[in-house]
């Protein structure tokens, strides 16, 4: 059995971390799949999907680390074409995954206590973002 759904999320303008664990949990529960796996795929190039602890201090540290690696006000070749000016967001996104796989056991995601499903995006404007979810199992 394969069941799919697309989540529409709004992480916010600029660097943002959105916790979507409860939404993914609800989808998995709705599929009634007991044994299988979930794939979550982030369909954008300015952000990523990760498993991490959604603690404010970690979010602040992640933001500062990414800012050091790819500064918001840095010079990027991507800006040469003058279509958009989000080179930093693309570089940050390239450093993190765009998909995750989580086992489903007895109808639940096998997440550890501190593990949350997080969308991390740095797009300067707030726009809709899509996460494709697919459960495979029985």
């Amino acid at each position, binding site marked *: 059995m394969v069941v799919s759904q697309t989540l*529409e999320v*709004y992480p*916010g303008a600029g660097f*943002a*971390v*959105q*916790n979507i*664990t*409860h939404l993914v949990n609800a989808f998995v529960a709705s599929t009634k799949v007991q044994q299988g796996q979930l794939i979550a795929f982030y369909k954008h190039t300015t952000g990523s999907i990760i498993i991490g602890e*959604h*603690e*404010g*201090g970690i*979010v*602040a540290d992640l*933001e500062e680390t990414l800012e050091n690696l790819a500064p918001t006000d840095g010079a990027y070749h991507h800006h040469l074409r003058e279509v958009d000016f989000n080179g930093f967001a693309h570089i940050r996104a390239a450093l993190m995954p765009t998909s995750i796989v989580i*086992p489903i*056991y*007895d109808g*639940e995601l*096998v*997440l*550890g*206590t501190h593990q*949350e499903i997080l969308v991390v995006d740095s797009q300067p404007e*707030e*726009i*809709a973002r899509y996460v494709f979810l697919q459960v495979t199992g029985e």
Partner: protein
Amino acid sequence: MPPFNTLLFWLGGVLTESIAELTIGALKPGFGPNERLQWKPAIDPLAVDLILGLIEPGDYCKSVIWACSGKIAREELEARILVRARVRTDVLSVIRRIPAGYEKWLISDFPPPWFAELSDRALIAEIFSPDRMVYTSQLGIKRLNPDIYSSVPAAAKHKMNECIMVDGGSRRAVEGIKRGLVSIIYVYPAQLAHELALQKIIAGEVEVMHPSSSERVILL
């Protein structure tokens, strides 16, 4: 003595939807992505002015209607916002588990006249006594960041390092941490309970490993 003895809960965003979310829903029940993207940038700064007490509730509604080209009267928008502002009882259930030794304060970003009109006010009063409420509109500050992070603990007569703020605004919570105020980002009740358990404020309900994640083989 625990390192933190005082918990500060935002009303909007934790106990209820945020003022901006309530306003969008009041303007158009069942709003979609277009309304959200179109209106939120206009409503957010107005909501901040309301939270800070820089504008009155009536002027807030009037400005929102003008900014969003709304077709309803100011009084109607205000009434709709208050009707939509229902307290999340599952969040209250988590807060009730906090032992009496901790001071629990409510940060009301709703102005006093709005708070007085909340239909679920009695539910809130069961947990937060009137002398443990801080109205952001009465703090006398002109900006949220960074003033809110020091002024709320001060209003509660505590040092910043004695307090944990529970905030539904992820960005605001992270900024608070950068300013030295420990903050929990509220997303959903189970996660709030988990965060409070991590601080050993309430008893934890979950095991570190997934409780039913298959047979375990222990390598000694």
